[in-house]
């Protein structure tokens, strides 16, 4: 082989050795990749920080410390008339039961032989919910008055927070709600096996509780309220949205009017959600006379808010069905409506569902419009089954988070984070369903 001399002398335009220009271009590409990676890293680390802080604060909300006590159901207190008539027993209100709980704690101290110097107000370790718990049980079992009954009560939030590491002996010394001796009592009861920490289903299923009983507060009413609203949004926004987009996409003539409608739909999708709340207050409550704080009004307001999202995604799904399908259907003699409902709509289905689920997820996390229609409220009674329940007062998950962050007791901060976790789980389930549906049924041409 003979070396062929390079006709351009010492030029570096070989594809093996990069010239200056190529180096520059390669460096630019490398830099861009780095910027991209950095952008992703910043986004990810923000997400990780957010999730970590919520999980760190919120996971303890799913467990709760409980104490088991024998409560003497003394007849003098509960049934002063002595006739065991449930109506007379019901006259003793919740606060009247506090003495029994005190007695129960003192009995336990005696029974387990606990001796703590300077112990003041030992019943302060038991939640105020205990009185309500005993009263409900007694009203159901009036014949048990006079005997004793074993109950499992929540401890107060301060004792519970001590086991979660948020209250320490040092902070308890300064705290007016708990004393070191009371914590020592809780520890002694734990050693005796009467106090333990376990998973707390009530956090998910129980209704909200007042500011004095953070340990008893749960998400039950909020979850039902959110579910009712989602049901209403689904039942109203899906048919209306799909009908509107089919008409606009397949039947409507292209003229100035449809152009205006199209622009307005896109505009509506960008309107701040609080505006829909104001609209809801004016139309549904003040004009139509629907009740305040009810899921029906919340559902209607969120329907208005979700409609543009559903219309836009449905139109995109319909557009992505190739015209050849319509032409083929029309070619074999199908009517316009048959071609849409037999061929186009089924093919666009997965896209429509994905858009709907994403719209619903958006509605699930919405707080601002609910603020104005009275759903940011303290509600402790479950709404009835639908359809009547649509008109009963309820709250919603994001609203419950908002409510709890405003309360004075620090234990509510933990529960707010717990509620965020529940909300995130629901959102994740909805979004994963949307992705799975798309993967499973989507067709590409």
């Amino acid at each position, binding site marked *: 082989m003979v070396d062929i001399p390079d006709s351009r002398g010492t030029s570096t335009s070989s594809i093996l050795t990069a010239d200056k220009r190529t180096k520059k271009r390669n460096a630019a590409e490398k830099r861009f990749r780095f910027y991209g990676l950095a952008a992703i890293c910043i986004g990810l680390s923000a997400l990780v920080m957010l999730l970590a802080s919520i999980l760190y604060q919120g996971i303890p909300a799913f467990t709760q410390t409980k104490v088991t006590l024998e409560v003497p159901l003394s007849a003098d207190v509960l049934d002063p008339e002595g006739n065991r008539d449930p109506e007379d027993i019901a006259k003793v209100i919740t*606060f009247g039961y506090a003495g029994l709980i005190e007695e129960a704690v003192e009995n336990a101290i005696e029974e387990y032989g606990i001796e703590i110097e300077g112990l003041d107000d030992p019943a302060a370790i038991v939640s105020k919910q205990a009185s309500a718990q005993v009263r409900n049980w007694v009203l159901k079992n009036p014949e048990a008055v006079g005997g004793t009954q074993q109950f499992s009560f929540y401890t107060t939030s301060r004792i519970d927070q001590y086991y979660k590491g948020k209250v320490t002996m040092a*902070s308890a010394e300064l705290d007016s709600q708990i004393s070191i001796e009371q914590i020592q009592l809780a520890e002694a009861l734990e050693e005796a096996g009467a106090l333990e920490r376990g998973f707390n289903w009530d956090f998910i299923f129980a209704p909200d509780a007042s*500011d004095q009983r953070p340990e008893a507060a749960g998400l039950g009413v909020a979850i039902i309220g959110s579910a009712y609203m989602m049901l209403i949004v689904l039942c109203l926004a899906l048919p209306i949205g799909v009908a509107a987009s089919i008409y606009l996409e397949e039947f409507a003539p292209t003229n100035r009017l449809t152009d205006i409608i199209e622009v307005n739909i896109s505009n509506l999708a960008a309107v701040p959600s609080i505006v829909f709340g104001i609209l809801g207050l004016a139309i549904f409550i003040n004009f139509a006379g629907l009740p*305040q704080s009810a899921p029906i009004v919340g559902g209607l307001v969120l329907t208005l808010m979700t409609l543009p999202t559903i219309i836009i995604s449905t139109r995109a799904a319909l557009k992505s069905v190739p015209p050849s399908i319509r032409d083929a259907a029309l070619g074999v003699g199908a009517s316009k409506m048959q071609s849409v409902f037999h061929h186009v709509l089924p093919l666009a289905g997965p896209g429509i569902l994905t858009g709907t689920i994403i719209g619903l997820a958006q509605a699930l996390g919405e707080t601002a419009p609910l603020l104005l229609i009275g759903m940011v409220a303290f509600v402790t*009674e479950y709404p009835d089954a639908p*359809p009547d329940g649509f008109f009963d007062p309820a709250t919603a998950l994001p609203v419950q988070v908002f409510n709890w962050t*405003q309360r004075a007791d620090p234990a509510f901060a933990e529960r707010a984070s717990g509620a965020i976790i529940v909300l995130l789980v629901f959102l994740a389930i909805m979004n994963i369903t949307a992705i799975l549906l798309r993967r499973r049924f989507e067709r590409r041409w």
Partner: protein
Amino acid sequence: MSFVKTTASVAILAAAATAASAQGREQVQVAGSSTVLPYANIVAEAFGESYDFPTPVIQSGGSSAGLKQFCEGVGENTIDIANASRPIRDTEIEACAANGVNDIIEVRIGYDGIVFASQQGGPEFTAFEPAQWYQAMAAELPQDGEMVANPNTNWTDVDSSLPDVEILAFIPGTKHGTREVFEEKVILQGCEDSGAMQSMMDMGMDEDATEEACMAVRNDGAAVDIDGDYTETLARIESNPNGVGVFGLSFYENNTDVLNVATMGGVEPSTETISSGEYPVSRPLYFYVKKAHIGVIPGLKEFAAFFVNDQVAGQGGPLADYGLVPDPELAQTQQKIENETTMSQEAS
């Protein structure tokens, strides 16, 4: 997607709408002050547990917003009770009357203290005087016969007995009822105590102008308005160790492990000192009942009566436990609810 299904679901919703609008509202609806909210929550919960009536629904949103909702009219889709951390204003009574809400029963549930607290372990703010707050917070101070921009930047500039840290106070924003009390009972009082009021008068200002000048709060960053709740004030204190915050007594009592309270005028805030009137910064809390709804909304009168029951709002009751200062004239309030005495009847 079948049209039958969608039309059916719409039909069900429509049917449900007509069915429910026929039946009346069963539970009491309350809205208003976020200061009264925790007390209302506690009472509503106990009321629902102890009586056959459904638990009332309590919304927050502030005294003014609550009273506005209250005055929207009479009827089942309007609220029955408005909570307020200040007495109802004449303009609000007029607005009510314009919408047909003529008979209002005013119920005073007790008193609330306003306390001044800093971070536990921070600088030692142990004692304040209204005059010190005035000199630290005023926008302009009188000096040698004219008003000059507040020159104090450090608490020691105000009084050498105070800690040597920069002035940074978190005070309630203007939308809160608490701000009014803070201005009247602390700033205005301090203006008078410090002699600034006299010097302003001497400068030839009339009474209104003096009062206005006294209550003008500086906006150079030393006084920070908090429009959110006390939880926000607490968060700001926690991130600014040298800051001082204004809180409600009940909020402080729930957070004594992180907050250090200072005395005002030499008196430590507590339910006892407030009910005896020794502690200067306190205000009454109210709720207002729409008389036209009594007998229409089940349990409304019973709820109002239960709220001011001795077992609930009295000494040693759950509300006092939470930080409410019991009203010594509770018996009269109970009588008022029993007789359904409206504000116009009281006036005449």
